[in-house]
């Protein structure tokens, strides 16, 4: 009998230790804005671009380096309802010729509970995007007005 009791006691101790372990946040959290660049002449073809990117009043992303890419993943400001990104098109052959486009992204945030370890995430709805300069950037297109994940591009930019 005492062996059974000891076994039960040990198993319950083990159980309580096991259930106290830390849980890590492994869920998808606040999504970023996914931008893809397309050719303005053949709108279904992806086209690379050389850019320096930063948000208004913020430090340049990617340490201010020129990036050559066909897609960008940009954070959105969960404290505000809009963010302005500056897209400065670079030309490595001619460093003087830069052209900055200002993209204003407006949205409402909604906070959703995920789990104990993650807490809350923000998702974005009523998303709109506007551009004022229109130099190299011919047009932009939103593929969705709600941003809940990063599976697909939310914004297509034609240049």
């Amino acid at each position, binding site marked *: *009998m005492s062996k*059974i*009791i000891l076994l*039960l*006691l040990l198993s*319950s*101790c083990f*159980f*309580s230790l096991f*259930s*106290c372990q830390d*849980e890590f*946040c492994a869920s998808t*959290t*606040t999504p*970023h804005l996914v931008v893809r660049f397309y050719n303005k002449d053949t709108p279904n073809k992806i086209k690379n671009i050389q850019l320096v990117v930063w*948000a208004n009043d*913020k430090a340049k*992303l990617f340490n201010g380096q020129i990036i050559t890419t066909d897609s960008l993943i940009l*954070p*959105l*400001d*969960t*404290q505000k309802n809009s*963010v302005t990104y500056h897209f400065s098109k670079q030309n490595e052959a001619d460093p003087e010729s830069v052209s900055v486009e200002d993209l204003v992204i407006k949205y409402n*945030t909604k*906070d*959703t*509970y*995920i*789990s*104990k*370890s*993650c*807490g*809350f*995430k*923000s998702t974005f709805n009523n998303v709109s995007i506007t551009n004022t300069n229109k130099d190299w950037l011919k047009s932009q297109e939103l593929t969705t007005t709600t941003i809940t994940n990063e599976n697909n591009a939310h914004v297509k930019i034609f240049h």
Partner: protein
Amino acid sequence: MLKYFISLICLFLFTRTSYSQEKKKVIKVEKESVSKFYNPKTYGLRLGIDIIKPILSYTRDNFNGIEITADYRLKTQLFVATEAGNMNRTIQENNFNFSVNGTYLKAGVNYNLYTNWLSMDNEIYIGARYGFSLFNSTLNNYTVFQKGEYFAPKEVNTPTKYTNLNAHWAEFVLGIKTEIFKNLFLGFMLSVNKIISTKDANNFKNTYVPGFGKITKNGSGANMNYTISYRIPLYQK
């Protein structure tokens, strides 16, 4: 579960009503069976209080709670047992802070595995409980979880209150009770529990339930109490 409950209550009532008849018999039996093996047990209502929770309430700012316990001997080794309590606790998680306050009730049976010598009345028991809690929770503040630090995450400090939450659970218990003076007992009990169902708020999940403790990912939890209890002796058999 209800059926189980009703039969428990019936059992309890039955023993209460038969008590007055038994009393006369007992005296007779006692006279007839005064042998050296005769080992009568005291029957009575045992009331106790958990002494951990008041200590924690005193030493911690984020905890306030009380628990009372009661049990009643049905047979030499079998007891009906219950715990009831009230709790108010604030918990800081990685990205949010919340408070829970509410009451709980647990009811079930204990079975004593320990064979007492002579007039000793100690217990090493196992048992089961059904637990129920009614509570409210308040989300005090939270910080939105995001990857990257280009923008500081949003912090929300406006409390949100969620009312009329509840939880049901089952418990497996293991404990000891020692009679330190006549009818005065010290007890220690460990319990492992599992949520049966819980009513969550709209945009917030219950991760702590009064009487249950923290709920882990798989819906289990663990608890303990340390009680001092007094048995109101009714009769011996």
